[in-house]
């Protein structure tokens, strides 16, 4: 391994909470008092460690994701990397040309046209004028703003602004790319394009540091991820860090409760009855839901929802009605409902929610979220959510020419 492109060595950053003197009016009396031997009238300043003792390194061609709740120090970390802030302790170093997108269109001036802003923003990012001119068409094309390029940016929609900002960064040819939450803006096709562009950067040997709340994107793009909350909580493979973050933030709670029926707990077991938290695609799982009934209740349904944790996608919803088990006249009992299903899922983090539903009114009587968490691991990464257990075969004979071509291709592949 060569020298890391990004080194973050035991870095801490302290901020002072509360205002200090902001005008001479405050400063002068305070200095005067100090000169008289009194105590300075600083409003009590409290220290706040936004980032505490964080270390990581990113090699060229690798991507590091930084995840964590709001206010965890993610953006501060990026600002330390880009030299906007100076660490209180520790040392950070970035080797080579840095492309930074802390706020996507920070350098734009609303009164300038798109074209003028490309040159300005490009220069801010450290591009040469000839370089920008060379990439101008690609940038405009990537951003999809060709008709509006000579219009003032203040007339742009926020999506157009963001697209133009990313498009400039995407053509920077950096050695290190530092990106803060770009995927929250722009429509779906643009987000997809951003991800693909970042993947290409990685292949070209660019080191990427990527802050995002889009865990799905972090999981698919990043090799390693750092979960921080001021102090680092987990640094490891992206999947493990995401899992650690999800487990940390998933404090189980009852969302609805009316006291009559309560889903009190749930557990997930594998085919051998052992608790399941890491499973392979196709494993058989059993979800045991424990329910307490305090008052007589008729016509109630128990069910569960399966979510992909990284983006809250509902993968599946199942309930006992589907399996024609009636629940009527329940009273003062403890019940256990078992659901057995196959985890035909691709790699990722999933969680289940268990609920009790009053059938006639469609009202939730009780919801437990998340009732259980699990991770699906696999060797080969399939894209998507569901494992469709694909098999493929050549169903119809091809023409002679095509077959010859196919053979040639397979020989070439072997060679």
């Amino acid at each position, binding site marked *: 391994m060569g020298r890391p492109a990004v080194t973050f060595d035991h870095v801490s950053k302290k901020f002072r909470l509360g205002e200090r003197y*902001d005008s001479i009016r405050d400063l002068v009396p305070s200095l005067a008092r100090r000169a008289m031997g009194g105590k300075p009238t600083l409003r009590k300043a409290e220290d706040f460690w936004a980032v505490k003792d964080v270390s990581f390194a990113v090699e060229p061609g690798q991507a590091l994701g930084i995840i964590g709740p709001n206010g965890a120090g993610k953006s501060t970390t990026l600002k330390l990397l880009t*030299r906007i802030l100076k660490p209180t302790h520790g040392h950070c170093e970035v080797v080579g040309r840095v492309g930074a997108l802390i706020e996507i269109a920070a350098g734009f001036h609303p009164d300038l046209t798109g074209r003028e802003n490309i040159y300005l923003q490009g220069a801010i990012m450290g591009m040469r004028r000839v370089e920008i001119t060379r990439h101008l068409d690609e940038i405009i094309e990537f951003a999809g703003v060709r008709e509006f390029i000579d219009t003032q940016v203040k007339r742009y929609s926020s999506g157009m602004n963001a697209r133009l900002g990313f498009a400039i960064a995407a053509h920077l040819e950096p050695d290190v790319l530092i990106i803060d939450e770009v995927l929250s803006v722009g429509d779906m096709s643009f987000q997809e394009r951003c991800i693909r562009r970042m993947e290409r950067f990685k292949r070209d040997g660019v080191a990427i540091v990527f802050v995002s709340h889009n865990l799905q994107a972090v999981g698919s793009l990043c090799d390693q991820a750092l979960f921080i909350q001021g102090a680092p909580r987990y640094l490891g493979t992206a999947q493990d860090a995401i899992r650690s973050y999800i487990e940390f933030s998933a404090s189980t709670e009852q969302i609805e409760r009316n006291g009559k029926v309560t889903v009190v707990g749930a557990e997930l077991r594998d085919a051998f009855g052992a608790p399941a938290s890491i499973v392979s695609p196709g494993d058989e799982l059993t979800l045991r839901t424990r329910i307490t009934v305090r008052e007589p209740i008729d016509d109630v349904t128990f069910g569960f929802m399966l979510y992909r944790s990284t983006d809250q996608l509902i993968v599946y919803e199942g309930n006992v009605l589907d399996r024609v088990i009636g629940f009527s006249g329940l009273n003062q009992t403890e019940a256990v409902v078992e659901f057995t299903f196959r985890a035909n899922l691709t790699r990722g983090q999933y969680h289940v929610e268990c609920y009790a539903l009053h059938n006639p009114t469609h009202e939730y009587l009780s919801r437990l979220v998340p009732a259980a968490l699990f991770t699906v691991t696999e060797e080969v990464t399939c894209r998507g959510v569901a494992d469709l257990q694909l098999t493929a075969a050549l169903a119809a004979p091809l023409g002679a020419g095509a077959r010859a071509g196919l053979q040639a291709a397979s020989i070439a592949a072997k060679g």
Partner: protein
Amino acid sequence: MLNQLTADVREMLEEQVTYRELLVQMTKRDLMLRYKQTIMGFGWAVFMPLMNTVIFSVIFVRVAPLDTGMPYPLFSYTGLMAWNLFASSLRFAVNSLTANTNLVTKVYFPREIFPFSAVVVSFVDFAVSSVILVGMMIYWRVAPGPAILFLPVVLAVHLMFTLGVSLLLAMGNLFFRDIKYVFEVVLMLWMFASSVLSPVSMVGGRLAVILQFNPMTSVIDAYRSVILLNQLPPAGPFALASALAALTLGMGWVWFHRTEFRFAESV
């Protein structure tokens, strides 16, 4: 200490080389914005000193005649032009960091770019307004002589001093917003202490001793000497002004550079 200083100065200069195109782009941006949606455009650069020249010419030619050794409009236009470069640079620079909070807190590049581009923008105005001076010299049949070759030196001293004060003001206003209010008053007093409209030599007495330490007086007088009188500026006072200008720029820039990393937190 000296090693640290050399390292800082090297870093400061290297950064300016690396980001040289940004200075151009920032200046372009400020120029475009300055005259965008105006009808007169660069005409404004000429209009202000010209108006002032007319007003003060009426006062000092008709109301209270003043002997300046040359046609008064030439005297005052040269003074106002030079003063305007200084004053408008400072007016731009004082807000340059605080008006670009977005950039200061979101993107890294040497922050000197902001006050520097303020000076360059004002310099473009200065160049435009000098066209009028040429016109006036033709009208009054004042031809420059060989002393005009000294003009670049005068300009360099003028710019050094302006850059130095711009850096200090931009930085000061970031930490204490009072600066931008105080500075307008100071600027007005400073103008009357700089032989813009009347020669400072007429003040006399103890006040004149203090006033000769004002680099702007020497600079403005030097412009008149080399352009209009075909004389080199007096060596002593001009050397003093040059030294003060170099000191202001050097100290201002190093101080600015060393404080720079606190800007994003304090703006």
